[in-house]
């Protein structure tokens, strides 16, 4: 494999899979908040 191709392969892997790794790390640092089970986002409009 030529050196330029190898370099671009490595650069591509680092940028994209590295980006994925960072994105996952970011999500892990912001865990999902626990929400109330009773969250109902709509109500019967005729009830009030």
């Amino acid at each position, binding site marked *: *494999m*030529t050196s*330029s*191709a*190898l*370099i*671009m*392969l490595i*650069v*591509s*892997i680092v*940028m*994209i*899979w590295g*980006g*994925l790794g960072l*994105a*996952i790390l*970011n*999500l892990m*640092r*912001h865990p*999902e*908040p626990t*929400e109330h089970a009773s*969250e*109902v*986002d*709509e*109500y*019967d*409009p*005729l*009830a009030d």
Partner: protein
Amino acid sequence: MAVSAPAPKKRESFSSRKVFIFAAIGSAVGLGNIWRFPYIAYDNGGGAFMIPYLVALLTAGLPFLFFDYAVGHRGRASSPLSFRRLNRGTEFIGWWHMGINCIIAIYYAAILAWSLRYMIFSFTQAWGDDPATFFAADFLQAGDPELSFNFVPGILIPTVLVWVALIAVMSLGVQKGIGAANIVFIPLLILMFVALVVYSLTLDGALTGLTALFTPDWSSLAEPQVWVAAYGQIFFSLSIGFGIMITYSSYLKSKTDLTGTGAVVGFANSGFELLAGIGVFAALGFMATAAGTQVSEVATSGIGLAFIAFPTIISQAPGGAIIGLLFFGSLLFAGFTSMISIVEVIVAGIQDKFDMGRVNATLLVGVPLAALSILLMPTESGLYVLDILDNFVNQFGILAAGLVSIITLAYIVRALPALRDHVNKSASLKIGPIWMVLLALVTPIILGYSLISTLITSLQEPYEGYPPALLNVFGWGMVVLLLVLAIVVSFLPWSKTSRAALKPPAPPISGGKVQDSHVDPSRAAARAHLNKEV
């Protein structure tokens, strides 16, 4: 007379953002990741293509993804209702999405059916010495390019099976059907595909293939069509702009980190494409070496890559049957999870419009679509109809709808600030002016340029030289019909039992202003009626 009030209904949702991420990745990672990206990269600068590709991901892909998430998550509804809740005048965009997905579903099932058969063919190398002739003549029995209803049983049966499986999975619902299917299939897909790539790398000539793909041609960065190709690949690969991400994000809980989640989905989709590039070109390198030719002579994409080149590789490589199982199995899993998301856009829209339960809506959508698919695809003209539908719905359906939705929401409704505020409520990566500029300026310029140049080319030369009769019906006719139907349907009223009658979770926007009142006129009318009766 007392009007009995229906009990508040809780809408289906994903149990956690992890399930959503799997589902969104399942949707984004599809056939195009495996058979389109590698060739596009190769043909547009090789290793150098990674620059415009990454730029496109960051400046258009992710911003548009966040945009779709915002519309669906804020509206907490299917695409038509989410747009309606945002601003009545934009509802037609949601119906346009529904139509686009109907068309895609019809032909997508056929490709899954082919993958299923080819998985089995891999064990006996049923394609013999001439996979190209086998595919067109023996397998598809493709006849003259004119509409035919001569059915091909070898395709008919697997197409039926695909639809049965799809309807079954989707009837189970958002969490137990869509969520569960993706939680199972996506890890399996990754495992299978990694195994395939690793195996391909051991084949003689693999490095030749990788060299061909990754050698950078820096002069390509000065060519506009390379940048258009990069933006086009990102746009079509990420499942943005045609209602899927709007629908899926509507199933997320309120306090969801949409940008953090979106970044994972976007990079995962690109990560898989890169893996596919490595695997496909390693295999093509083997193929070229075995044939004593250059990679440039064997490099191809799409249906030809999957159903002609890969069978050749399978016949020649040691352990070819395993390659076949892994490759066609990957196509099947990637495609099936994508197809789930395509059909979900339609099911969700029907559920909202007619206040229908999951099973009834799935059947109402799935059975007629299956019937159309089975009628048109497993025939002697199926390949041509597929090719035309696919090209036209992508260029003049998805691309056009994406452009219209951005321009409408950015410039007419001026909803971007409100969408930004909605996302930023729970976002780990806050979006601001850069996001708005990218969406309002960069994306429309690129999409508009692509659309206009494709329109000009398509008008000057009939696509692939197909006869006008086929092109006018399945190409231009289909495209115009989708838009006209979308506009017409958006004028039809929503009944008081539909979800449109419920209080929307966020107020509508008009001329850049968030409206104060949540009152939906149909609700006021219902109240007035009730008062009159009492």
